[in-house]
């Protein structure tokens, strides 16, 4: 319990660090929200006036603290470009990206775990070799390109879905899920292949451990308990990877949302970055980093549950 609490506190500190980092970063990069808002009609006078109106002429630290305390009060501000309340704007989009990430995560596990175990048991079999080669090929296709290929194959040739025909989850949840299946697959496939590779590798090295060899030499090759132990040890690096994969998926959704015309957090983040729409960027980053850190925390906890040797409580 104390462990979890400590983890939680450090997580909050990390998120604060991230927001500070973003805030400073936006001060360094080129581009100016005021000029983005006013466009080519901007005159120096209007730029000045708007800058004052948005308090952008204040020092960075002051602006940061203002933003921070408003955020703490639950006020995420108003989007510079859309003039909409950031909270309502983002809350509407969270389910879209979350659905995609979760769906992709489960697809990845469903594909990776059985294949990883199977191929490690039957090294050199036809299936093993096919999986290895297929893995390599899938791994080497950039996500935007596999998205285009999937759209073409499932959308145009097999006509399983309408390319670009995204349906909002508020309108028709079933159609929404069906449409999201394909982008999720585009995200899951490359990650799954990596997970297979990792699981296979780490299981194989476990086979070579002394305790396993001894057991094998005593004819214990089908011992369930033994296998359980092996899997438990072998799965550690895989869990690390799964956690990272989930993070990657959230970041990867930016590209896939672009390819599949999905209005999710990634698209909003990307356009808000280029519009220098800080209130939106900061809010999304807080959400994304909270999700990422939460996943990491869970991994650490799972780690210490599986392998009691790992613990910081000395």
């Amino acid at each position: 319990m104390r462990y979890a609490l400590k983890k939680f506190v450090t997580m909050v500190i990390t998120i604060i660090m991230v927001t500070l980092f973003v805030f400073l970063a936006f001060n360094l990069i080129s581009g100016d929200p005021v000029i983005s808002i006013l466009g080519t009609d901007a005159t120096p006078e209007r730029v000045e006036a708007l800058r004052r109106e948005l308090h952008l002429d204040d020092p960075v630290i002051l602006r940061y603290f203002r933003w921070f305390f408003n955020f703490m009060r639950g006020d995420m501000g108003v989007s510079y470009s859309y003039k909409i309340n950031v909270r309502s704007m983002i809350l509407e989009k969270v389910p879209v990206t979350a659905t995609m990430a979760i769906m992709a995560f489960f697809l990845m596990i469903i594909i990776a775990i059985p294949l990883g175990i199977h191929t490690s048991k039957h090294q050199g079999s036809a299936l093993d070799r096919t999986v290895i080669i297929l893995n390599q090929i899938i791994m080497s296709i950039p996500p935007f390109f596999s998205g285009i290929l999937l759209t073409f194959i499932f959308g145009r040739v097999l006509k399983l879905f309408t390319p670009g025909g995204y349906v909002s989850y508020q309108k028709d949840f079933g159609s929404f899920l069906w449409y999201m299946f394909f982008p999720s697959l585009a995200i899951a496939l490359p990650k799954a292949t990596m997970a297979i590779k990792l699981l296979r590798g780490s299981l194989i090295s476990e086979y070579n451990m002394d305790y396993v060899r001894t057991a094998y030499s005593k004819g214990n090759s089908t011992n369930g308990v033994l296998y359980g132990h092996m899997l438990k040890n072998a799965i550690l690096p895989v869990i690390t990877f799964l956690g990272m994969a989930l993070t990657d998926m959230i970041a990867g959704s930016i590209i896939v949302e672009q390819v599949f015309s999905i209005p999710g957090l990634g698209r909003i983040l990307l356009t808000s970055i280029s519009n220098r729409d800080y209130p939106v960027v900061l809010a999304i980053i807080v959400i994304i980093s909270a999700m990422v850190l939460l996943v990491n925390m869970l991994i650490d906890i799972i780690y210490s549950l599986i392998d009691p040797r790992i613990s910081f409580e000395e």
Partner: protein
Amino acid sequence: MKKTTQKVLLLFALIAVMSVALCGCAGDKNEAGSSITVGIPQDLEDSLDPHKVAAAGTREVLFNIFDGLVKVDPNGDYYPALCSKYEISDDALTYTFTLRKGVKFHDGTLVTPEDVKYSIDRCSVAVGDAPLVAAYSNVKSTSIDDDKFIVTLNEPDTEFLAYMTTAIIPEDNPEPDTNPIGAGPYKFESRSPQENFVIKKFDDYYDDEHEAHIETVIFKVVGNMDTVAMELQSGAIDLLPRIPLSQAELLDDNFTVLEGTMNLVQALYLNNAFKPFDDPRVRQALCYAADPAEVMQFVSDGKGTEIGSSVFPAFGKYYMSELNDTYNTDIEKAKALLADAGYPDGFEFDITVPSNYTQHVETAQVLADEFAKIGVKANIKLIEWDSWLSDVYSKRQFESTVIGVDASSLTAASLLQRFVSTDSKNFINYNNADYDVAFANARAALNDAEKTKYYKECERILSEDAANVYIQDLPEFVAINNKYTGYEFYPLYIQDMAKLRLAE
């Protein structure tokens, strides 16, 4: 030959009669409940307040929601909209509009003379030192006289009518930024960021001649324009303005691809304050080295209209096609000019291009190749659009850039004013005393012929002084599903949805 024509005509007549007979007079009834999905490459990441809108992409959509005292038609002429007629005094100082009676806003309230005055005043009131609409700095006063609305100017301006397209909005709308209320043929329905923007036909529209036909129009944000043909073919999008040529080629018979022009001045804009571009000979050398025909060949399969100065063909009487020949590609002459200017071995410079505009990026690549032939090395630097706005356009920290400059209204001034040495939009730092004089003369002229003469002089100066390396007015392709008809091109950034109908 003649007989076949007759036969074809007869056939057409027959089909026409039959379709009328079959559909009866249900044309309009069919359109009840009809909808069309229009693809847009970028969301309306903007305020929906028509007076604050910055992006051309938002302006062209909001055209459907707001009407002004006058409105522009596809020919570029202005017709009375919220006024029934207008009068311009002979000295071009007083504009008198007779307001229409009984016109309603989308919220059901009547358009009052006070709303009109409020809307115009809102744009002429200074923020800082400059008004919201730059041209309104010329407004001296506005007044209401019964059903008449009168605008008085400080200086005579015969072109001022073009600025009276300003949207008329109700004075009491508390949220003009997010809930636009106007008096246009369509009313705002809903929006979802990065997803869509929906408008619905306004049933109480005052003007039967220009009313909308399709009931619902959904503007849908397209994620990847490079593969958009798949979305059109699958039926997710019915109409797509500015479709890339590579995608238009892939469409089947269910679509018609219309060709128009983008109405902008695409050029390699040179920072005239940057050495060596402060030397007209160097600029001229680049003009001689550039070959607009080759650019068009690569960028749009040879389509596009060559231009030789800062006015594009849609401006009719102001456009001077003869300026296209000021510089015909001549490598030797270019080299001679460079040597003359002290750069016999050429020089190196950067072309900064916003990465989201494929045509401009491709144009820059062709130009870089052409400049290499006269020993000039051009490095292409891609930057984000917003960095372009702030670094290149606003701070003028650039060497050269490929971009298309559009016009905010159909006045020659909207294209030519920016080259006046002191103008705040003069992002290329152009500085030519002759030009400033010619432009001032054009503004002051009351007589149309004289005005045109001075504006043409401005264009000639830009061309001969090689202010920029002028290239073309880009071609625009519009893909439309054959279920719909009636799409019209405008000489400005406008997508007029009210003209669309269901095909018979």
